[in-house]
């Protein structure tokens, strides 16, 4: 048995349908992760030991347990608590929360990289706390974070096939179903691999270009 191009061509339109879901899930969950990650870092600034321990602890827990199990938990357990989300909503929420725990580390490193003089200068200029954060600290903290965030965007993209395990028909879900139908997995699964490789390279090129444009504006 070897590669069958005709069969591969049959699989392509099916995979294209899944590709759409993959992209939607990637973009939405990354947006959620970016916002939530920042909220985590800001929550840690609250001068309360309990809050800090709680936030740090849950961050560790999220990073220390597999995304697949977290998704199963959301998908199978939430309905018992009378929360019913559609599968795609569950998936986007799970991916978003998981990556928020990673992105918060990136933000934290960025904030730590802002020289202490900037804080002192902001105080000398009589800026309020909010003004200092919004106008002085965050702009300087976020810029060096962008390339690392780009890496996480690509990592997240590559985790989306896990969504197929909670019945979401992303690229991998479509490939598996198509394979089940014809009992032939070589072509669809290989094509999914090639598609991921190409989207990943494309995403890397886009994030690289965006970062270059941001660091030296024309």
């Amino acid at each position: 048995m070897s590669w069958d191009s005709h069969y591969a061509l049959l699989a392509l339109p099916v995979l294209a349908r899944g590709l759409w879901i993959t992209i939607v899930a990637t973009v939405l969950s990354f947006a959620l992760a970016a916002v939530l990650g920042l909220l985590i870092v800001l929550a840690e600034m609250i001068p309360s030991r309990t809050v800090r321990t709680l936030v740090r602890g849950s961050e560790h827990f999220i990073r220390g347990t597999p995304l697949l199990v977290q998704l199963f938990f959301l998908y199978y357990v939430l309905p018992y608590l009378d929360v019913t989300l559609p599968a795609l909503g569950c998936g986007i929420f799970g991916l978003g929360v998981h990556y928020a725990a990673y992105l918060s580390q990136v933000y934290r490193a960025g904030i730590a990289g802002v020289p202490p003089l900037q804080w002192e200068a902001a105080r000398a200029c009589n800026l309020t706390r909010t003004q200092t954060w919004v106008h002085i600290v965050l702009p300087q903290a976020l810029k060096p974070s962008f390339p690392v965030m780009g890496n996480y965007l690509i990592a997240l993209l590559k985790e989306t096939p896990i969504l197929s395990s909670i019945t979401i028909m992303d690229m991998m879900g479509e490939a598996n179903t198509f394979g089940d139908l014809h009992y032939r997995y070589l072509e669809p699964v290989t094509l999914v691999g090639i598609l991921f490789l190409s989207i990943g390279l494309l995403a890397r090129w886009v994030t690289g270009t965006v970062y270059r444009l941001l660091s030296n504006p024309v």
Partner: protein
Amino acid sequence: MTATLIDLAVSMGRGLAITAWLTMGGCALALACAFLFGLGRVSERRAVRAISIGYIELFRGTSVFVQIFWLYYALPAFGILLSPMVSGIVALGLNVGAYGAEIVRSAVGAVGRDQAEASTALNLTRWQSLRYIILPQAVPRMIPVFGNNAVELLKATAIVSLISLSDITFQAQQFRIRTGQTIMPFIVTLLLYFMLYLLILHGVRRAERAYALPSGNRPS
């Protein structure tokens, strides 16, 4: 109730053993690949460099999920049948090894050029210089990052439950189907993984101490 609890404990114990084997096997393979291709990446020979780059880009560029499924479902088309355990270890090891290779490359690159030049001046062979001069300075830098990769590998083992390997996640799913209980198996599963995660962190911290350079000799 007691019967259910015993059932849960027994199946989770079985799953834990499988997950532990997968993690250890995957880590061993990943470590070997990391050094093999990480050093190959900075080899003087063009062919070795090209092969290493190809391996690294291929396995970092595609998803580990796709790789596991490919080994298990697509490879039989070429007449190669791997058991789920072997597919799992090979896919996880090769995937994490590709990330590890980049760590080895950057850690070796971070050791100053003067060290390599000094070894040449002392008439050390390339192997001697690598073994006694470069690696002892490079390895301490690798350990914390390798630790993160080991955690990623542990978490990725959950995916093999989807190719019918009865690890912790698979056992939790089976238990859910068997008993209709949902909350308990998944909470136990999450806690077990978290325990393994803490275990890896602990091991990495010990390794960091064991391989730390004597103070005063630390690479700047």
